[in-house]
């Protein structure tokens, strides 16, 4: 059941935001149940198919984005602050951390078969990975991915990461065992 007044109010708010807005904030400001806000946002996000922009939920918050098809036009305006590329080694290390977090550096090294010290440092300074406590038994520092990582991949939550299973053979419980054997 759509509510044009609510939809437009959300759109009006999204015009002035400088960071993604959560459903909860919108619910509080508009004094509506969160469910209704979610429904409205999802309905709205489907409505910009013929526009040069779209509405997306990334890392927990909603905002308007330009569509990738028109990036060449937009890039001429947004020149500074270019992102630097990640090396293959950094991407692979990041993949291991993303799927095995929280994870110690030693364990990432074991999976990748190489020393990952330098790469881990790069990932931390780039804000893609952060420390996340200490492993109980070993005392090793654990690492996890950040919300900036989600943003860079355009994901809303870690659960949106592609499933690892199709990349592994079809053996039951293999993934589980893999998780435990690399210590």
């Amino acid at each position, binding site marked *: 059941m759509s509510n044009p007044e609510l939809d437009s109010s959300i759109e009006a708010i999204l015009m002035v935001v400088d960071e993604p807005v959560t459903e909860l904030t919108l619910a509080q400001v508009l004094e509506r149940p969160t469910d209704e806000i979610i429904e409205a946002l999802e309905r709205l996000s489907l409505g910009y198919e013929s526009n040069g922009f779209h509405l997306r939920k990334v890392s927990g918050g909603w*905002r308007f984005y330009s569509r990738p098809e028109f*990036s060449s036009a937009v890039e001429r305006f947004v020149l500074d602050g270019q*992102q*630097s*590329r990640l090396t293959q080694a950094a991407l692979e290390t990041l993949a291991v951390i993303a799927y095995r977090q929280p994870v110690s550096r030693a364990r990432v090294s074991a999976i990748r078969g190489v020393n990952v010290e330098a790469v881990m*440092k*790069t990932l931390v*300074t780039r804000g893609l990975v952060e420390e996340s406590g200490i492993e109980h038994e070993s005392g090793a520092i654990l690492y996890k991915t950040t919300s900036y990582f989600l943003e860079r991949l355009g994901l809303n939550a870690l659960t949106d990461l592609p499933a690892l299973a199709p990349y592994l053979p079809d053996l039951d419980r*293999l993934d589980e065992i893999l998780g435990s054997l690399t210590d």
Partner: protein
Amino acid sequence: MQAKGSFVKYGLHVEITEETNAPEVSGAFSVHLDNFDGPFDLLLQLISRHRMDITEVALSAVTDEFISFIRGLEASGEGWKLDQATEFLVVAATLLDLKAARLLPSGEVEDETDLALLEARDLLFARLLQYRAFKEIAATFHDRIALEDRIFARVVALDPSLASLLPEVLIGVGAERFAAIAERVLTPKITPAVAIEHLHMPLVSVAEEARWVVESLRKSKTMSFRHLVADAESTLVVVARFLALLDLYRQGALRFDQVVALGELQISWTGSESGEVSAGEEFDLPVVPIDTEETPNV
């Protein structure tokens, strides 16, 4: 993707046509054994799916083939493929362990699907498979990041008319915390190396930088040199990109414009819109002795 190979097991000749999610086959290392002929990746897949027994693979032959593959690359002027070489080392070492474990009589397990009873060899399998799975998923990360780089968020400044409605701004942190934020943000994205840089100098490939330069110029048509090296992490990268530009200029793929001496150097792409343009290979050393990030420790 081509996924065909054949092997002989127990006197039967079996054609394998199952699909494989192995990465790029072209230009990759392939193996020619008595009982197997095909890409290395496929060999791994067959072993992993218990379609082929590791004890039937002559690892020394695989190693010999790999060495001649690398020699071939050297001779063709393509140089060492460091990523392939390190990967081969990791995989070959695991296969060797696997074979050793398999050849021990006690290593036999009747029920192969009972993972709770995984023996050393199966753990090694698993390790190998996991290693490959993460390599493949890293490629999807790369694609996602490349897509996100083309999507821009609406980020607008606070409207002055709305600002007048606001109460006092809340910085929300104390001076100490504020300083900590400054320290984090001002820390260079490249961590300053201690004094081992001379040992671990990450080598820059001119050919690789050339690919990046071509991609950037095709997208933007015209760029200043300053902009082209804006994300360079070291002087070496700046130099590599400059050498790449010179080589591309020699090939007639771009034009330089500099209005005044020492002024901004503008580069315009005049080459093809798509397709492979390679440059700078002659600058890259044929043998790369050390790579800081990829030191095999198997």
